[in-house]
């Protein structure tokens, strides 16, 4: 099930921010590879560089040095609009908060990436419904995004994340705003998608969330301090 060729390959990635006169190095040289079908959790305390790693893997930001190869494309030096296209085609995002457009229906939220991705308009609604069905929300399609629960919002975000059939789903603290029961539910959804062959990367600081993944990468002070298989599969309990 795991491919030989990595979809994500980070080589000596560094990222520095200049705040005033001081330069702050958030990433000090990170190298990692993610293969198709993997479920990776990136963990670390705040300030460890996990958000910066998420931004770079998510093509939201470019590294100061090092190369990032996504699906055989070196996107380290892509322009902003090229990165936008990569995000649209290759990456499905699930954020902690502010996942959905306000005043907009669930259906239109799921349709959005297809509007930017030049999907023919007559296919858009059908594809959106297909993805909503996967997260059991097809009956909420015409609800406004501010009229559904927090767990439902995350499920809509998952539906939107897969609607462009991306190479990976990148979830940044997807359960950060949820109670533990709903968190469990959301993680089970992600796990199911992973079992269907989707590559998933979750950024989290909670170990019981990371426990859903089959590989856990630990960051500290801008460096990877451990990267190993996850032995305790919660799904088996």
């Amino acid at each position, binding site marked *: 099930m795991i491919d030989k060729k990595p979809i994500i390959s980070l080589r000596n990635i560094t990222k520095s921010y200049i705040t005033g006169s001081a330069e702050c190095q958030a990433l000090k040289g990170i190298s990692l590879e993610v293969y198709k079908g993997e479920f990776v959790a990136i963990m670390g305390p705040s300030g460890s560089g996990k958000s910066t790693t998420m931004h770079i893997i998510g093509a*939201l*930001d470019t590294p100061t040095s090092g190369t990032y190869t996504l699906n055989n494309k070196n996107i380290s030096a892509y322009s902003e609009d090229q990165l*936008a296209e990569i995000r649209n085609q290759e990456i499905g*995002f699930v954020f902690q908060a*502010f996942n959905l*457009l306000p005043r907009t229906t669930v259906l*239109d939220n799921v349709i959005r990436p297809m509007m*930017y991705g030049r999907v023919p*308009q007559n296919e858009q609604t059908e594809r959106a419904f297909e993805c909503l069905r996967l997260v059991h929300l097809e009956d909420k399609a015409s609800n406004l995004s501010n009229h559904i629960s927090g767990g439902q919002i995350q499920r809509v975000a998952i539906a939107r994340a897969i609607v462009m059939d991306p190479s990976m789903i990148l979830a940044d603290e997807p359960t950060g705003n949820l109670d533990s029961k709903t968190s469990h539910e959301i993680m089970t959804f992600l796990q199911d998608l992973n079992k269907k062959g989707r590559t998933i990367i979750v950024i989290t600081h909670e170990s019981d969330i990371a426990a859903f993944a089959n590989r856990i990468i630990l960051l500290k002070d801008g460096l990877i301090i451990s990267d190993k298989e996850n032995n305790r599969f919660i799904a088996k309990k």
Partner: protein
Amino acid sequence: MNYVQIIRSAIRALRGNILRTILTMLGIIIGIASVILIISLGQGASSSITSQVSSLGANLIFIVPGKQIPGRPPSASNSLKYADMLALADKTRMPDLGDVSAQVTTQAEVVTNGQNKNASILGISATYANINSLEMNQGEFISPEDESGYSRVAVLGPDVVADLFGEDAHPIGETITIKSRSFRIIGVTKAKGSVGFTNPDETVYVPATTAMKVFLGQDSVQAILAQATDAKKVDETQEQIIAFLLDQHKITDPVLADFTVRNSKDALSIVNNVTGLLTGMLAGIAAISLVVGGIGIMNIMLVTVTERTKEIGLLKAIGAKRKDILMQFLIESIVLTVSGGIVGIILGISLSFLATRFLPIPFVLQPSAILLAVGVSTIVGVVFGIYPARRAAKLSPIDALRYE
């Protein structure tokens, strides 16, 4: 991204904060409504004057004494004689001219039975009624015999009759006194309403010959009115008159002519120039309010961009390019100004329709004014929306996502 989808999402965003949207639109609504109102009233006034002037007939030619240089006040002169009028009226010499009338005016107190009224006294030829399409309500108009015989007869406008004798009076045969000379009333004209700056209903008509002799003591006239027989040949006829009068006055160089010939077309273009200038000036002032409205839009759009920073971050994360964000906010401001413009057009049309009920001008609605208003409100949307939209488009996705 599809424009219908962008417009739909723009309308959704604008409806999300409906009070703010309406308040922002108000600037555009007032601006467009006042431009429409002013243009519509201006054109109404202009068309009303035009129809009044052309009711005089397109073939009417005025001859006034003195050389009139454009931009200078007309020089008073007594170079135009009654004899010139008689010569022009001679069909054997001027076959292309129809009716010709002399005209002298004076302002005087008209007295009868202790009643008096200040009226304009118009000394004219018998042909005047025909030239000006004056119709008689009672009695007869001044006859050629009255004119040649220096008769002391007068024809009154209906308002003069009402003031001196009361409404519905029959003053034929009564006597009025003008400048201590008595005149016998031989006719009353039908009510006509004011034409340009004169009101025939407030006028007392007497034979030009009588007026010249008893009131002015001169043999010169203030104007000669002439009708070209063919309305299409007015310009040619005008040239003939000039040549004829130059010959009559023994002037060889046309530059030295001591009279001026104009036709009603010339008079019309002067009137239209004036109303056009006035309308343009007022519309310009109204346009300033559009600029103010536009600045209000820019202000609100900047606030909106700041408020929706996280939304912009999210849209960029799921694949919106700079152009997509730019278009979204630009279209939002265009939707704002165009819908304000449409409301403004409706308001402006209703107001000008209402105003024309109470003003003596017709309701004129030119499609070009509406097109102009829609065009202008679109331009205002683009001009004042582009800066906020560019600000939104330039946001970096992570800064936008992180924004609190």
